[in-house]
C-alpha cells in the first residue's frame, strides 16, 4: 500500500481510492494499466459516472424554462453544480461561474466577448512562450481581426519565466495578460499571483489558464485576483465537454454575449433582443446539463478526499519520478523549474519520443508523446516533442517504477 502523510489529515489509502475508478480494473497488453497521461485527461471515479447516469435515468429535462417537476429538479442540480464549483475555487458569487465546453472555449469567449471590442490597431496582448496553443491561437485570431499584436514573455533553460522581461513587456498598449498557471508541457508553476499584481499595477487585466492547476492544488480566485480564470472538467475527474470560465461579476456584467440563442435572452423581437443577466447571458442554447452535474460530483469527490492531500501525494510521486529519471542514461528532463506540478517531460538520446510512447504502451504504461500542443515551448529547446508522464493523486511510486522499467526496456530494444 502506498501512503502519504499530510499535516492536515491522515494518510491517503491509494489502493482503496484506485478501486473507485472502474477503468483501472483492466489490463493493457496483459499488464495492469499504469495511466500517466493525466495532463491530457484524468480518469473518472464511479461517483462521477453514477451522477451522470442518475441524471439521465431520473432527472433528465431541460433547465430554467420548464415549470414541471423534472425541469425544476434539473435546474436545481445544474445550479447546485455551479455553486459547488464557485465554492471550490472560492469565487465571490455563483453567478461568476460560466459553464463552457472547456478551457479552450472559455479563452475564446474572453477573446471575442471581452477583448475584441477593446482592441485598437497597435494594441498588445501578452502571453508566455510556454502557453498551450489554446492560450495562443484565440489571441492570434482576435489580433488579426483588430490589428493588435501578440508579445511573448520568454522562459529560461529551466522553463522559468523571465519576470524582468515580463515587466519590460508590460506597456501602455498592453490590453491583456494571458498566462498559464501551470505549464502542460514543462510542469512549471508560474508565480501568477505576483504577475497579476504587477499587471494590475499597470492597469492590465489578466486571464489565468488554470487547466493544469485547478485539478492539482487549491486555487483561490479571490486571493489570486485574476480577472478571468479558465479550466476544464475532464482534467479534474469530471466529464469531457464541460468547463468553466470564472470572471469577476462586474467584468461579466459589462460584457456583450458571446453566442446568440435560447437561454441567453429575456425578450426577442425583430426590433432587437434583451439579454439575460449573468451568467446565463453566456450560456446560449441548452447547456451540457449532465456534464455540469458530473463536474459538480467531481468537485464533491475532490473535496471528500481533500485537494491538499491530493497535492501532497502528487508532489511526492513527482519528486520520486525526477529522482528515478536521473538513473536513465541519456535522459534529459525538459522543464526543471524549482516549482513544478504534475508533469515530467523528457527526451532520451537516440530515442524518438513517439517510439518510446508506442513501445512502452505495450507494457501497459500510458504516456503522452509529441509537442503537447505547445510547439513554441518545444521550439525553445530545439525539440519537436518530448515524452511526458503526468500524474494524478491515484498514481504511486510503484507506477513510477513501472515507467522507469519500461523506459529501460525500450532503450535496450532501440540501442
Amino acid at each position, binding site marked *: 500500500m502506498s501512503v502519504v502523510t499530510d499535516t492536515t489529515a491522515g494518510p491517503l489509502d491509494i489502493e482503496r481510492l484506485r478501486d473507485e475508478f472502474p477503468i483501472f480494473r483492466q489490463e493493457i497488453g496483459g499488464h495492469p494499466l499504469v495511466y500517466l497521461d493525466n495532463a491530457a485527461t484524468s480518469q473518472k471515479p464511479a461517483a462521477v459516472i453514477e451522477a451522470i447516469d442518475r441524471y439521465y435515468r431520473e432527472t433528465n429535462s431541460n433547465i430554467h424554462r420548464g415549470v414541471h417537476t423534472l425541469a425544476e429538479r434539473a435546474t436545481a442540480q445544474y445550479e447546485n453544480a455551479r455553486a459547488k464549483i464557485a465554492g471550490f475555487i472560492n469565487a465571490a458569487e455563483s453567478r461568476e461561474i460560466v459553464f463552457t465546453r472547456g478551457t479552450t472555449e472559455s479563452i475564446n469567449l474572453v477573446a471575442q466577448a471581452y477583448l475584441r471590442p477593446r482592441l485598437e490597431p497597435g494594441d498588445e496582448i501578452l502571453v508566455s512562450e510556454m502557453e498551450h496553443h489554446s492560450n495562443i491561437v484565440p489571441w492570434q485570431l482576435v489580433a488579426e481581426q483588430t490589428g493588435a499584436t501578440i508579445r511573448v514573455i520568454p522562459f529560461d533553460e529551466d522553463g522559468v519565466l523571465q519576470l524582468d522581461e515580463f515587466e519590460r513587456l508590460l506597456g501602455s498598449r498592453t490590453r491583456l495578460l494571458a498566462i498559464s498557471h501551470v505549464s502542460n508541457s514543462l510542469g512549471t508553476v508560474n508565480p501568477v499571483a505576483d504577475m497579476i499584481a504587477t499587471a494590475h499595477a499597470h492597469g492590465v487585466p489578466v486571464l489565468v489558464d488554470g487547466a493544469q492547476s485547478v485539478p492539482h492544488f487549491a486555487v483561490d480566485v479571490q486571493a489570486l485576483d485574476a480577472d478571468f480564470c479558465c479550466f476544464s472538467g475532464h482534467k479534474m475527474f469530471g466529464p469531457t465537454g464541460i468547463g468553466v470560465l470564472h470572471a469577476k461579476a462586474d467584468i461579466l456584467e459589462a460584457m456583450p454575449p458571446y453566442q446568440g440563442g435560447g437561454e441567453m435572452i429575456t425578450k426577442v423581437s425583430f426590433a432587437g433582443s434583451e439579454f439575460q443577466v449573468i451568467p446565463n447571458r453566456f450560456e446560449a442554447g441548452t447547456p451540457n446539463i449532465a456534464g455540469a452535474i458530473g463536474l459538480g460530483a467531481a468537485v464533491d469527490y475532490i473535496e471528500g478526499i481533500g485537494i491538499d492531500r491530493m497535492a501532497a501525494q502528487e508532489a511526492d510521486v513527482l519528486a520520486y519520478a525526477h529522482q528515478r529519471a536521473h538513473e536513465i542514461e541519456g535522459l534529459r528532463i525538459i522543464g526543471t523549474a524549482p516549482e513544478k506540478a504534475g508533469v515530467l517531460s523528457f527526451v532520451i538520446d537516440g530515442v524518438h519520443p513517439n517510439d518510446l510512447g*508506442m513501445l512502452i504502451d505495450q507494457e501497459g504504461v500510458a504516456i503522452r508523446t509529441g509537442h503537447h500542443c505547445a510547439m513554441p515551448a518545444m521550439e525553445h529547446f530545439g525539440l519537436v*516533442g518530448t515524452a511526458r508522464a503526468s500524474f494524478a493523486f491515484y498514481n504511486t511510486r510503484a507506477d513510477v517504477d513501472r515507467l522507469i522499467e519500461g523506459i529501460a526496456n525500450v532503450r535496450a530494444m532501440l540501442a
Partner: protein
Amino acid sequence: MSIERVITAFEMMPSWQDRYRLIIDMGRKLPELPEERYADDNLLDGCMSNVWMTAERDDSSDPPIMRFEADSDSQIVKGLIAIVFEVFNNRPPEEVVTTDIESVFQQLELEQHISSGRRNGLSSMVRRVRELAQAELAA
C-alpha cells in the same frame, strides 16, 4: 527479406513486442541517405516524425524500375519504411501505382497495432511513393 517472409515472420511471432523488434531491425538495414537528401523538399507531410523520401527511375534496368530511398528520425517509422519499400522498391512505376499494399498492411495487422497518428503517417508515405511513381509515368 521478401514481403511474404515478413508476413510469415509476423504470423510466427506471438507478441507485438517481438514484431516491433523485427520492424526496428528491418529499419536498421535501410541504407543511409546522402547528406543532401535531408532537405525540407523531401520531407513528408502528415507524419508525427520526420520522413525524408526521394525516388529515381533506373533506366539501366529493363523495364525501368523505381529506386526509393528514405529515412526517419523514428526507428519504428524507419522499419515501416522498410516494409513499404519491400513491396514497392525496385519495381516498375506501373506496378507501384497499382500494387495493393493495404492488403499487406492488413495481413500484418498493422492497422490495429499502430497509433492513428502513425497510420496517417503510413498513408502519407504510401501516397508519396505512388505520386513519385506517377510522376515518372507522366514524364
